C-alpha cells in the first residue's frame, strides 16, 4: 500500500492509494455528501450524491511523465464530467474540487430528485433529528421543490419486514445500504429489491421474513426513516434521548452500547463504536434483548421469610437475618458449610467482593459461577493463559491471518464474532471452521472440517503432529515437549482420518494454513468448553508449537457463556483458585458438588447472587430445600428466589457503574443509566453490606450513585454523536482511600474504589482503574473524525466513554511458562445401548430470563430433536414424529426434525429451551443416547 498525495479543494493530503475520494477528503476534514456510500460497505456509486470534479495530471504520451506548466507545476486535466467520489480511487497528483458551481448544481440536483419521491413527514418520522437526508438537504439541497405534482411514490405505510423491523417504502431512497449489509457483512441475504425503476422497493422473502440476527443494524445505517425497529418506533424523538454508555452482557463479545434514556426509561439500545470489539454493530440480542431492565416484576425491597411467606423487609432487618443465620452456621459447622453461586453477567466489582466475602469473612472456598448441571462449561483457564495478546484488534486482520474455529458456532454463541471473522476473510485471511455439524460460518470458511463427534482429540493431535513435524525449534520456557512427542508418536494420521471421517489431505491442508499464518487465532466454543482443558490445551499447543503465544493478534478466543464470564474467572469466583488464577491450598466445592453436600446436610447455607439454578437444573431444588438458610439476590423473584429465606433486590447492568471483562480480556465500563429506588444498592454494595453486617459493623448507606456519574448529553439538532460532539461532563472519581484500608475495613465508598482494589490485588489488572479506562476514550485513531456525523449519522454512537483496556494473558506475564503436556483422553466409550452421540446446540435465542419481555421471545424455537435423514429412515422416524431420547441419566421427548446435513450417528438438540430440558439426560461433556420413536 503506497502513500500518494492529492489535492482536495486546495488542501494537499497524503493518503494510502487504496482509498476512495470520499475517505481521502475526509482526512482533510472536507465533507463530500453521501447516501449510498458507507465506510463499512462496498461502494456502489448508485445514489450519485457524491459527484465531484476530479482531475489528474496530464501525462506526456511518450514519456508517461506529467506535463508541467510554466510554473513547473503539473498541468491538471479535469475529466470531462463529474465523477462519483465514492467509487473513484485516488491517484498520484489527483485534484478534487468539491465546491464548484458545477458540483453544487449536481449535488443539489440529486437531492431535489430524491425529494421528488420522498415524503416530507419528518414530524412523524423516527429518524427526524438524526436523519442524513434531513442534514444533507439543509446543507446541499434545494429550499423549494419544483416537482409540483402530487406524485410521490405511494405504498402501504408501515410494513412489517419482519417482526423486529418495519419498512416504510415511501421513505426509502433506494441506497441499498441495508441490502449490502445483509449480503456482504451479515451473510444473511434476506433483503432484496422488487420491481425496477421508480417502483423499486425493498422486500424480504426469507421464512420467517428478515431472518437475520443482525437485522437491527440496518436501521442504523439507513440514511432515512425507511427502516425502523418495532422496539423503538414512535417511542421518542432522537433529541430527547440521553445516551448513556453501556455494555451488552448477553455474550462474551462485550459489545459497546448506549442505553438511550428518556425520563429514566430505556427507549432504545444503540451500538457504540469500538473497533476492537463490535466496530459499529450489535446483534439483535444486544439491541432488542434489554427489556429485562424494566421488567414489571422487578424487586424493589428486600424480602424476608416470615411465617413461611416472603415479606417485604427493611435492609437492616434483612441484613440482620442474614448475618445472624450465617454466623450461626459458621459457628456450628464452620465456613465450609456455606457456599456461594454468582452469575457470570455480574460486574467484576460484584464478583470480586463476593469472593472476598466468602474467603475472608465467611471462611469458605465453596464458590462457583456454574450451577452444577452436567454438560456445563468447564472453568476455562487455558483461554486466559494462551488468550490473544494485548493489543489484538480483529478489525485490522486479514491477509496473513489464519483463524481456526473449533467446536464453535459463533453466530449462535457470540453473534458479533461472526461479523468479525467474516471481515478477516474479506480482508484476505484464512478461516478454517471445524465442527461436527454445519454452522452458518461454514459459508465464509476457506476450509471446513467436519469431524465425527468424539474425534476432536484425535483431530487435534493429528494437526499437532503435522505442525510439529514442521517445527524446527520448540520455543523457550516450554515444558512437556517430551510428553507431547510421545503422544504424537502414537497418533497415526490414517487412523485419525478413519476415526474422524476427515480426509488426510484435508488435515494436511489445515496444517499448512496454520503453518503459513503470521497471526494465528483460535476460536473455540461450546463443544470445546464442555470438555475443559482436555481439548483447549491441545488447541493451545498449536499456538505454542507455532511460537504464537503472548503475541498481539494471535492466541485463543474462547466463546464463554456471558458478558463477564472471563471476569468471573479472573475474580476467582470458583472453588479452586483465588482472584488472578492463584492456586488455593484448600479447594472448595464446585456447584456440582454442592447439591449432594446440601442433601447430605454438609452444606447448610448459601448465598446465590444473580443465578437461578432451579430454573434450568431441576435437581437443584431439592438441595436448596434441604439448606438451613438461603439468601438469593436477583432482580426478580426467580424460581430459586422463591425458595429463599431472604431475597435481596439486585440491580441490572443499567443501574450502576461497573466494569466487565470480555472474551478477549478487555475490561470495559458500563455507566449508570437508570436510577432505581433510593433504597436500592448496586450488587457490590449489597455484598459489602453483608460483610459489614457479618462483622457487626453499621450498615453502610450504600447509595446507588455514591459516585458522580457520567452521561453524554447530546446537543440537539446537530451532530451530537460526532467525535466533536459534546463529551458530556466527564467527572472522574478516583479513590482517595487507600486500597489496603478499604480492604481491611470493607468501607468502599464508590465502585471506583473497588476497582482500584482489583487493580491492586488481582494480578493482571494492575493499572486498570476507572480513571485509566476513561482515558482510553482519548486514544487517537479511533472511529470517526471531527465533523462527519453526515457520514455515520443515525448509525452507532461515537465512543466518548473509552474503549477499554486489555488484561494481559497469562502467557504475557513475566516468567510465564508454556506447557505442552497433552491432557489425558476423556473418551466416552461408544455403547450398543446408547448408540447415538448427543450434540447440544447453544442457541442465541433461548429461554433466557434476560430475553423475557423482549421482542425476541417469539424467535425462540419450540424444542426438536434433529436426526440425519438416513438414521431417521432406519429408525422409521418421519419428520414431526415424536421421538424419545434415552441416556443413562434419563429420557426426553420432542418432535423430530429430519435433516440432510447432520452426520449419521448423532442427534442434535438445542439447549436452554423451556420445553426441552436437555440437562436432564446429559451425563457429562459427551452424552450417548438411544433414539426411539414414540408410538402414537
Amino acid at each position, binding site marked *: 500500500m503506497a502513500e500518494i498525495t492529492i489535492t482536495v479543494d486546495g488542501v494537499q493530503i497524503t493518503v494510502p492509494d487504496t482509498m476512495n475520494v470520499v475517505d481521502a477528503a475526509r482526512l482533510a476534514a472536507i465533507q463530500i455528501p453521501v447516501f449510498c456510500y458507507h465506510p463499512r460497505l462496498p461502494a456502489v456509486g448508485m445514489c450519485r450524491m457524491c459527484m465531484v470534479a476530479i482531475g489528474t495530471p496530464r501525462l506526456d504520451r511518450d514519456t508517461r511523465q506529467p506535463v508541467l506548466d510554466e510554473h513547473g507545476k503539473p498541468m491538471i486535466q479535469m475529466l470531462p464530467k463529474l465523477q462519483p467520489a465514492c467509487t473513484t480511487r485516488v491517484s498520484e497528483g489527483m485534484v478534487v474540487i468539491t465546491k464548484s458551481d458545477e458540483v453544487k448544481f449536481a449535488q443539489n440536483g440529486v437531492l431535489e430528485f430524491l425529494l421528488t419521491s420522498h415524503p416530507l413527514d419528518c414530524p412523524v418520522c423516527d429518524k427526524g433529528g438524526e436523519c442524513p437526508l434531513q442534514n444533507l438537504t439543509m446543507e446541499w439541497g434545494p429550499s423549494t421543490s*419544483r416537482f409540483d405534482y402530487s406524485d410521490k411514490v405511494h405504498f402501504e405505510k408501515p410494513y412489517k419486514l419482519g417482526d423486529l423491523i418495519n419498512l416504510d417504502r415511501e421513505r426509502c431512497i433506494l441506497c441499498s445500504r441495508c441490502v449490502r449489509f445483509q449480503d456482504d457483512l451479515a451473510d444473511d441475504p434476506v433483503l432484496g429489491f422488487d420491481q425496477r425503476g421508480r*417502483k423499486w422497493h425493498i422486500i424480504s422473502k426469507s421464512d420467517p421474513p428478515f431472518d437475520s440476527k443482525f437485522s437491527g443494524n440496518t436501521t442504523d445505517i439507513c440514511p432515512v426513516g425507511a427502516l425502523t425497529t418495532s422496539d423503538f418506533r414512535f417511542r421518542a424523538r432522537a433529541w430527547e434521548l440521553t445516551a448513556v454508555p453501556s455494555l451488552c452482557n448477553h455474550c462474551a463479545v462485550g459489545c459497546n452500547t448506549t442505553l438511550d434514556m428518556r425520563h429514566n426509561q430505556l427507549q432504545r439500545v444503540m451500538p457504540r463504536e469500538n473497533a476492537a470489539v463490535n466496530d459499529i454493530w450489535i446483534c439483535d440480542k444486544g439491541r432488542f434483548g434489554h427489556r429485562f431492565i424494566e421488567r414489571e416484576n422487578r424487586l424493589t425491597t428486600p424480602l424476608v421469610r416470615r411465617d413461611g411467606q416472603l415479606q417485604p423487609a427493611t435492609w437492616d432487618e434483612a441484613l440482620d437475618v442474614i448475618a445472624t443465620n450465617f454466623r450461626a452456621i459458621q459457628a456450628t459447622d464452620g465456613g465450609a458449610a456455606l457456599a456461594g453461586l454468582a452469575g457470570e453477567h455480574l460486574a467484576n466489582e460484584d464478583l470480586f467482593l463476593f469472593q472476598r466475602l466468602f474467603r475472608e469473612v465467611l471462611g469458605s472456598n465453596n464458590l462457583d459461577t456454574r450451577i452444577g448441571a452436567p454438560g456445563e462449561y468447564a472453568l476455562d483457564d487455558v483461554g486466559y493463559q494462551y488468550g490473544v495478546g494485548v493489543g489484538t484488534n480483529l478489525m485490522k486482520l486479514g491477509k496473513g491471518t489464519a483463524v481456526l474455529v473449533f467446536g464453535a458456532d459463533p453466530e449462535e454463541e457470540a453473534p458479533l464474532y461472526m461479523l468479525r471473522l467474516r471481515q478477516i476473510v474479506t480482508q484476505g485471511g484464512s478461516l478454517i471452521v471445524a465442527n461436527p455439524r454445519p454452522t452458518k460460518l461454514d459459508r465464509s470458511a476457506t476450509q471446513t472440517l467436519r469431524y465425527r463427534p468424539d474425534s476432536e482429540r484425535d483431530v487435534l493431535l493429528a494437526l499437532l503432529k503435522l505442525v510439529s513435524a514442521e517445527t524446527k525449534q520448540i520455543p523457550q520456557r516450554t515444558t512437556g515437549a517430551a510428553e507431547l512427542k510421545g503422544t504424537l508418536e502414537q497418533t497415526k494420521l490414517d487412523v485419525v482420518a478413519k476415526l474422524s471421517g476427515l480426509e488426510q489431505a484435508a488435515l494436511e491442508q489445515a496444517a499448512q494454513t496454520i503453518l503459513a499464518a503470521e497471526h494465528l487465532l483460535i476460536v473455540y466454543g461450546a463443544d470445546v468448553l464442555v470438555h475443559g482443558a482436555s481439548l483447549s490445551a491441545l488447541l493451545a499447543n498449536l499456538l505454542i508449537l507455532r511460537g504464537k503465544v503472548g503475541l498481539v493478534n494471535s492466541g485463543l478466543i474462547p466463546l464463554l457463556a456471558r458478558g463477564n464470564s472471563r471476569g468471573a474467572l479472573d475474580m476467582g469466583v470458583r472453588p479452586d483458585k483465588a482472584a488472578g488464577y492463584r492456586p488455593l491450598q484448600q479447594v472448595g466445592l464446585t456447584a456440582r458438588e454442592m447439591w449432594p453436600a446440601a442433601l447430605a446436610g454438609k452444606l447448610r447455607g448459601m448465598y446465590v447472587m444473580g443465578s437461578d439454578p432451579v430454573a434450568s437444573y431441576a435437581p437443584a431444588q431439592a438441595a436448596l430445600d434441604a439448606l438451613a438458610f438461603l439468601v438469593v439476590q436477583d432482580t426478580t423473584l426467580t424460581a430459586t428466589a422463591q425458595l429463599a429465606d431472604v431475597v435481596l433486590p439486585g440491580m441490572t447492568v443499567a443501574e450502576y457503574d461497573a466494569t466487565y471483562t470480555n472474551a478477549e480480556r478487555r475490561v470495559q465500563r458500563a455507566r449508570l443509566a437508570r436510577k432505581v429506588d433510593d433504597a436500592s444498592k448496586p450488587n457490590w454494595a449489597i455484598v459489602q453490606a453483608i460483610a459489614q453486617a457479618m462483622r457487626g459493623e453499621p450498615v453502610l448507606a450504600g447509595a446507588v450513585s455514591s459516585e458522580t456519574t457520567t452521561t453524554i448529553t447530546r446537543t440537539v439538532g446537530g451532530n451530537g454523536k460526532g467525535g466533536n460532539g459534546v463529551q458530556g461532563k466527564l467527572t472522574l472519581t478516583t479513590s482517595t482511600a487507600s486500597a489496603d484500608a478499604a480492604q481491611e475495613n470493607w468501607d468502599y465508598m464508590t465502585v471506583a474504589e473497588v476497582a482500584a482494589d482489583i487493580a491492586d490485588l488481582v494480578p493482571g489488572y494492575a493499572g486498570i482503574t476507572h480513571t485509566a479506562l476513561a482515558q482510553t476514550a482519548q486514544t487517537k485513531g479511533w472511529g470517526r473524525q471531527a465533523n462527519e456525523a453526515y457520514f455515520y449519522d443515525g448509525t452507532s454512537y461515537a465512543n466518548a466513554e473509552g474503549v477499554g483496556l486489555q488484561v494481559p494473558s497469562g502467557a504475557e506475564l513475566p516468567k510465564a511458562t508454556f506447557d505442552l503436556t497433552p491432557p489425558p483422553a476423556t473418551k466416552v466409550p461408544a455403547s450398543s445401548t446408547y448408540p447415538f452421540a448427543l450434540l447440544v446446540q447453544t442457541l442465541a435465542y433461548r429461554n433466557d430470563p434476560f430475553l423475557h419481555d423482549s421482542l425476541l421471545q417469539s424467535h425462540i424455537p419450540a424444542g426438536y430433536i434433529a436426526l440425519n435423514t438416513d438414521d431417521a429412515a432406519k429408525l422409521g422416524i418421519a419428520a414431526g414424529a415424536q421421538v424419545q431420547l434415552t441416556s443413562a441419566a434419563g429420557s426426553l421427548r420432542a418432535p423430530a426434525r429430519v435433516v440432510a446435513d447432520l452426520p449419521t450417528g448423532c442427534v442434535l438438540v438445542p439447549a436452554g429451551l423451556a420445553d426441552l430440558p436437555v440437562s436432564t439426560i446429559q451425563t457429562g461433556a459427551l452424552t450417548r443416547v438411544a433414539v426411539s420413536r414414540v408410538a402414537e
Partner: protein
Amino acid sequence: MALTEHVIMRELDVPNIADFNVYLQHDGYVAYRKALTEMKPNEIVQIVSDAGLRGRGGAGFPTGRKWSFLPRGVYPRYLLCNCDESEPGTFNNHQIIDLNPHQLIEGVALSAFAIEAETAYIYCRGEFATAVRTLEHAIEQAYAAGFLGKNIFGTGVNIDLYVHRGAGAYICGEETALMESLEGKIGQPRNKPPFPAVEGLYRKPTIINNVETLANVPPIVRRGVDWYRSYGTPQSPGTKVFSLSGHVKRPGNYELPFGVPLRELIYSPEYGGGMQADRPVKIIIPGGASAPWLTDKHLDTPLDYESVAAAGSMLGSGAVMVLNDTVSAPHLAYKMDEFFKHESCGKCTPCREGTHWLVKVLHRFAEEGHGRAEDIPVLHSIYRQMQGNCFCLLGESAVMPIKSALALFPEEFEAYVARAASNGKGHNGKNGHAQVQPVIALQQR
C-alpha cells in the same frame, strides 16, 4: 448505389442461406475451418483490427482494439454476443438470426477462437422467443457437424456456444447489466472499472460484441482486409445494416456501405422509397433512441460514424427513424422518455427520478395539450441534472430526446404554453398525432 454483394444480408444474394446446407455450399464455415486449422488466435485479432471493424452495438468501438484489452494468460475467458436489441428503432439483429443464422454462429465461434474463449453465449432479449428457437436449432446443427464442442476439426480447440434468453429489460443490453443478467441476477449495470475485458462474466475476462459485429468476422477473415475496406470510408470501413423505420414508404433493413448519405437511404426507391404521402421530413433519429435528433437540414449527411457525429448526433446502432411533420416534437420527446422511464433500472437517482419527472412534465405538453411557462426551464434543468451524472448510458441517453426537442423546436413548447394561456388549458389532444396539428402548423418550416 446498391451493393453488388452483401456482407451481412447474404440472403439477398443466396436464397435460403438460413438453410445450413445452403450456407455450407456458399463458403459457410470456410473461414472458421481455416482459422482453426491454419491460423493462430492472434492473427485473427490482427485481421479484424486491420479491417477496421467497428462495433455495431452503438459506440462504434474498434473491435480488434477491444479484443486486445484482454489480460494475458487469464482463463477461462468468455465471449458474449449481445442480441438484446431493445432500443426503439433497432431491428436488424433479429433479422440476421432469422435469415442468416449460421453466419452469426460462425462469427461467434470464430471470434471465440480469436480471443481464446471456450464458452460463448448469445444473449437474446426475452421477447425473441422465435429467434431463440431458430438459433438453438442452428447451433444444434453446428454441433452435429462438429463445428462446436470438443476438439473441433481435430485441432484440440473446444468451443461451446449457448443461447441465453433474457426476460424483458432493455438495460440488459448494457454490457455489465447483461453479465449480471446472465449470472441470474437483476440486470443492473456494474461499476467500471473493472472493465469486462478484465473482470466480466463470473469475474473472468469477457468480451461483449453485438450480433452484427460478430457476423462481420467470417467474411473479413475469408475475403481479407482489402476486400472489406473496399466498402465504406477509411474510418468507417465495411457495410452497415441500417434499420429504417417511421414515415417512409418502405421501412426495413438495408445494408449499405458506410458513407451513403441519409437522403439516399430515405429516398432511393431501392431503400426507403421516400416519405409516405410525400410529406416532408421533420425529425431524423439516426442511431436509435439515444441519438440526438437531426432534421431535414441534415439529409445530406453521409452515414458514417464521423459524419453523423459532425452533424451533432451519433450513428449508434444504425437505427434510422424518420418522422414527418405530423409529429410534434414534445410528443416525440415524451414517447422516447417514456421508454427510458419504463426501462430505467432504478439503481441511480438521476435516471430513476429524472426520467419520471421528465415524463411527468412532458405529459402535460404532449398528452394534455398545454404547458406552463415555468415548465420549460424546469425541463432544461432536469436534463442538466441528469446529464453526466447517471450511473450508465441509459440515463444519459434519456437526456437526448428532451435536449434535442428543446434545442431544435423550442417554439413548439412555447406554442403549447401560449395556447394554454389563451384558452384556459387548451384542448385535450391525445397521442401527439393528428390532434396536435394546430400547434405544429404554427411553425411554418
